[in-house]
């Protein structure tokens, strides 16, 4: 007998034969039988405990301490600089930089997207005014008498720092039954105030920009982009899977470590599938070149996947603006026209509100309740008209931004930047294109869009012309063909990309394992022991 494994195998066989041949006819037989089993159980429980302890101590000796590769620090630096980029972005205005567009989107879709709390939106609006040094009072909320009534109660509650006020809720409910458009009117009131305090907000932004430039030692937006790009490149280099990540993936069952063994059929097939000409897996030069190419391919495919995810949005943009591609400089007169209409109507509404509040029209006192009620109804109608005008204004405002960029040579990167700069319109188009009716889904998609848009290491997106027919998949296939990588158009379909990415990651993981202090066998062992420990813990 050479080792304990053989001893156990033989001992079990012998004991099984013994058990099978023990008589169990009488009570005494059974007693003896059970006693024999108990003896075996005691012995094997000791073995069980001994082996388990040995496995656990062996496991500990294999564990690799997680090394800080600096990703967290670099990510924090990028996040900080992204905030500076947002502030210095020359494309948008104080409305977006203050984050008013985010709140306007929320209040604009208050009913449609089932927002739970108007209170939270209003409170965030007020805070934004406050940080810029503007303390709004009830006298600022006179868009309609209803807005004034609600906001007076709201501000009173706010001053008393009451989180929840039944009085405010009651007032809202009472108003709502006569004037269901109250939320629209609050939105319009904020829009008007945002316009009114343009200068203060701009000054506030200039101050923030100045401080950010000093803090980060940058002169302008281009400086900021250059610095960020260098950080993104660094992140790309260090933010790779580590051997510790692979061990964790295996332990959690997210990868099947058995596939990583050198004699695995799956492993050899993946090498064969991803390369055009057979390669010598033992030639380190060939293999290093392959892994370098696979790293680049992974980045390309990830970017291409993001591109495909947002392709419906790019197609929508193309459809909407193709006809407007200018031959020369184009000015959007529609924006000024609608702005002027809004100003005229808002002045009229102000006059109407004064009449309602004072109970007088000029020198004439309004004779009865009915006349005041009529004026109130007119103010609601006028506010409704203004709400529609603001919708046109929004669209023209965005069109104006688009037209300043619009050329036949516009690339995906340009569109990414445009929508990244205007959150309101990004969410608007995401909602429409993907037919989303849940704000969380819209926000999730919007965040994923921003991650794609902000990434300064994007390569293919800056080469894709929006108004031209694109064959980006073929370009990628041909580019990597030169590096002996075998790709086909089916693999580059949106749904198939995760499969392709897994294949690439699989081969890259082999490289990580091979260049690490640990072997596949040890990772397999760690995984098995981990499973054993977990099973015992749950029993």
């Amino acid at each position, binding site marked *: *007998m050479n*080792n*304990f*494994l053989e*001893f*156990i*195998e033989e001992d*079990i066989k012998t*004991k*099984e034969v013994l*058990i099978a041949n023990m008589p*169990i006819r009488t*009570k005494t037989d*059974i*007693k003896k*039988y*059970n006693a024999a*089993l*108990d003896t*075996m*159980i005691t012995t*094997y*429980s000791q*073995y*069980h405990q*001994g*082996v*388990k302890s*040995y*496995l656990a101590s*062996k496991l500990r000796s294999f564990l690799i301490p997680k090394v800080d590769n600096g990703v967290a620090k670099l990510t924090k630096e990028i996040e900080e600089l992204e905030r500076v980029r947002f502030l210095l972005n020359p494309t948008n205005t104080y409305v977006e930089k203050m984050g008013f567009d985010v709140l306007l989107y929320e209040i604009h879709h208050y009913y449609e997207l089932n927002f739970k709390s108007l209170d939270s939106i209003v409170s965030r609006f007020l805070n934004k005014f406050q940080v810029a040094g503007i303390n709004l009072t009830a006298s600022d909320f006179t868009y309609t008498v209803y807005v004034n009534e609600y906001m007076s109660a709201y501000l009173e509650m706010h001053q008393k720092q009451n989180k929840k006020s039944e009085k405010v809720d009651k007032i809202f409910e009472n108003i709502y039954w006569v004037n269901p458009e109250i939320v629209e009117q609050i939105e319009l009131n904020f829009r008007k105030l945002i316009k009114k305090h343009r200068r203060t907000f701009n000054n506030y932004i200039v101050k923030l920009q100045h401080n950010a430039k000093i803090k980060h030692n940058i002169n302008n937006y281009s400086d900021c982009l250059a610095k960020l790009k260098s950080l993104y490149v660094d992140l790309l280099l260090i933010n790779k899977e580590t051997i510790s990540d692979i061990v964790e993936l295996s332990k959690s069952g997210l990868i099947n470590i058995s596939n990583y063994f050198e004699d695995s059929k799956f492993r050899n097939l993946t090498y064969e599938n991803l390369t055009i000409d057979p390669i010598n897996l033992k030639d380190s030069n060939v293999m290093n070149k392959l892994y370098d190419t696979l790293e680049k391919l992974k980045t390309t495919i990830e970017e291409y996947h993001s591109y495909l995810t947002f392709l419906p949005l790019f197609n929508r943009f193309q459809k909407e603006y193709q006809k407007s591609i200018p031959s020369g400089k184009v000015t959007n007169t529609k924006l000024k026209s609608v702005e002027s209409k809004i100003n005229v109507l808002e002045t009229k509404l102000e006059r109407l509100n004064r009449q309602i509040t004072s109970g007088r029209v000029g020198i004439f006192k309004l004779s009865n309740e009915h006349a005041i009620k009529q004026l109130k109804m007119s103010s609601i109608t006028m506010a409704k008209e203004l709400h529609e005008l603001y919708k046109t204004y929004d669209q023209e405002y965005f069109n104006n931004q688009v037209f300043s960029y619009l050329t036949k040579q516009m690339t995906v990167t340009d569109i990414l930047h445009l929508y990244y700069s205007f959150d309101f319109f990004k969410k608007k188009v995401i909602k429409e294109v993907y037919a989303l009716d849940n704000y969380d889904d819209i926000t999730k998609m919007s965040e994923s869009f921003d991650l794609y848009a902000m990434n300064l290491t994007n390569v293919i997106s800056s080469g894709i012309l929006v108004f031209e027919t694109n064959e980006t998949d073929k370009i990628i296939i041909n580019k990597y063909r030169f590096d002996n990588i075998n790709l086909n158009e089916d693999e580059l379909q949106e749904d198939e990309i995760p499969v392709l990415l897994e294949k690439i990651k699989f081969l890259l993981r082999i490289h990580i394992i091979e260049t690490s202090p640990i072997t596949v*066998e*040890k990772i*397999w*062992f760690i995984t*098995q*022991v981990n499973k*054993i420990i977990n099973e015992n813990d749950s029993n």
Partner: protein
Amino acid sequence: MIKKEKGKVNFDLSALKLNELIMVYENINSFLKALESKKIIDKTKVNQDE
């Protein structure tokens, strides 16, 4: 190597390969489960207890 001391088996697990270690554990574990399932409950005792 296996040593027998006063009816007790001492064994050197370090001589086993990693996959053999897991096999040993699995064999012991399965056998223990099998032993537990093979035990015969004394029905008369159970009835008396009831």
